């Protein structure tokens, strides 16, 4: 039981770190916080692996450590630290306080939704499940509310982490190759986004999402 508490606790930490990723100024900071968050995620995986005795999850933790804690932050750090749009600032559209309240709202909502789901396998880890869902939506919220396109990359990463956690919680015994595929996708996604973001910056001289509204109608 204790380990499930641990898992749920770690999951709670994820929310905090994701708020940090969202709210921090500058992409480099966000990348650092993201690495931190991914590390917590890996810990969660490990706890989960220990609890369920899943050999696959150990492998997942390893691959997640490589991809999420090292590779992705590195890519982002390298790609984004040069990009800076002073006119835009952090590009947030709402104050940190509101963001926190919003996040809290999302978490509560997700708890409520998850409590309604009858999943025998996930009875013990419902809080973690709720957190993973909330995490996902926090990432989405990051994409939707932030004007800085780099933040949207982070938003995507948060969503990805959230869904990854869900996957681990609900499908702990899924073949490791699957996880490798997902992780690879994530890396490539981040790489492509980073590349596109860079080219957008070079072309538009801005990171403002509002500049990207010429195609419409």
């Amino acid at each position, binding site marked *: 039981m204790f380990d499930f508490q641990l898992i749920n606790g770690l999951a709670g930490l994820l929310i905090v770190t994701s708020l940090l990723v969202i709210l921090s100024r500058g992409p480099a900071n966000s990348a650092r916080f993201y690495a931190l968050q991914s590390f917590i995620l890996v810990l969660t995986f490990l706890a989960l692996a220990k609890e369920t005795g899943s050999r696959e999850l150990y492998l997942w933790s390893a691959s997640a450590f490589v991809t999420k804690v090292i590779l992705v932050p590195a890519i982002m750090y390298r790609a984004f630290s040069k990009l800076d749009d002073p006119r835009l600032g952090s590009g947030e559209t709402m104050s940190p306080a509101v963001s926190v309240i919003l996040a809290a709202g999302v978490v509560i909502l997700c708890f409520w939704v998850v409590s309604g*789901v*009858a*999943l*025998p*396998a*996930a009875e013990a880890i419902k809080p973690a499940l709720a957190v993973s869902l909330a995490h*996902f939506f926090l990432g*989405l919220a990051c*994409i939707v509310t932030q004007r800085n*396109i780099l933040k*949207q990359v982070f938003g*995507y990463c948060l*969503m*990805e982490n959230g*869904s990854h956690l*869900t*996957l681990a919680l*609900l*499908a*702990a*015994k*899924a*073949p490791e190759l*699957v996880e490798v*595929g*997902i992780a*690879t*996708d994530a890396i*490539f*996604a981040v790489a*492509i*986004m980073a590349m*596109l*973001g860079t*080219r*957008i910056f070079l*072309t*538009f001289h801005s990171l403002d999402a509002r500049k*990207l509204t*010429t*195609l419409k*109608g």
Partner: protein
Amino acid sequence: MVFSNLPLLILFGPLLAALAILLVPSRGFGLRLIELIHTVSIAAVAVLALAIASDVVDGAHLTAFDDWFAVDALGAIFVSVIGVVGFLTGLYSLSYIRHELRDGELDPAKVKSYYGFFSLFLFTMVLATIANNIVLMWVAIEATTLGSAFLVGCYGRKSSLEAAWKYVIICTVGVAFGLYGTVLAYANASDVLGNADSAILWTTLAAHATALDPMLAKLSFVFVLIGFGTKAGLFPMSAWLPDAHSEAPSPVSALLSGVLLKCALLVVIRYYAITVRAVGPEFPQMIVLILGTLSILVAAPLFFVQKDLKRKLAYSSIEHVGLIAVGLGVGGPLGVAAALLHAINHSLAKALMFCGSGNVLMKFHTRDLDRVKGLMRVAPVSGVLLLFGCLALAGLPPFNVFVSEFMVFTAGMKAGYLWLMLLCALFFTITVAGFIQIVAGSVLGKAADATPEGDVGVAALAPMGILLVLVIVTGVTIPGPILRLVGDATAIVTGDSTPVAFAMPWATQAAPAEVALAGPQLHTETKR
């Protein structure tokens, strides 16, 4: 289940080609080599796809790699669509890209990555269609986004970067929901089966779908529909589509609209099949129908008011995907068969039209329909091809879209959606109007004096010609193999595995042996 190497071959062929292309230097002789590898790659995909399809037509169910890959009738349909449309648009690319290179729109490095990503894109799409592992399916769909994102932004212009960015963000966000659906389905199944390894296979899921928890199955389907529906271009998740389609190079637009949307649809259809078995047809049909109808109702007027040729075609794609969804939504063997057939038909016709838009671009250097005038005078063959493409997409016979539209309509009537079908038909009249406008305004009429005469090269026209022939042939008669595949696939989707339904998409009580293949053979049977 037959183990076969074909799925692996078709999968890794283009992947290797992509890698090879990316390794070849782009200067001088390299470009020719790249084109050669590209041609070999697309030809290989086409040949293998048709080989797979013919195996499946013969009743085989190909599997590979521990059942992670499997090609049933349903998958075979889409694999062959990828093969054929991929091959033809790939051929068209050769001429189109050379033209762009000459015009300075692209530089050799971009050309190299274009061809590289083209094969990669093919690889991801093939992966999506032959994956039997549901997470792999998701991975593949996500990969298609990544593979094609570069292609969309290929030109590097402001607008194309914007389109690519939107494409990536919206699709990854959308498809992320798909992962939730996938995970829910998997968790659901592994609970039921107690076997984590096989629960991840779609075939297993489908076989044991009746045992699944209905509520979870519903939730899973909602997530899947939203997630993969984004990629498939269902309203309201389709917002990326007009931008990406209009900004991509024309052959890529053709591939996106003709094939990519269908790959995502395939995944939706696969989950639809599971959900139908798990919770009965009402719920999945209802929500698919809602999204499909919405797509038609919104896309048709939007289509009508566009001034940008490719954007117009993009909205038309949304509309047609909507129609496919309506076919699924009205359900029944007829509806599903109609939807599948429409997926095929729309692929061919839309590929033709997007290639045609490429010709327009090559001749006029603009997509603005107000400035494209008198294509028929300037480039007669392109004009004729575009004319027929428009008529085909408008749903006029003897082109294939008419046939499947009619089938969807009939299926809808059969399911009792008379008024809904009338509404859809009326909105498709708007489509007709829009395509007629294109022809009237841009294909016919008098060209501006400055426009140089002369058609685009044969290399660009030939693939379109083939597409037109396919569009007409499948319009005049549904070839036997297609009919067989659609029939089998329908049975897979509806889960009604009695042989009658397998043989009979029309759901009458004829025995399968009676299925006379289409074709103008004169049956000597006289009535009255």
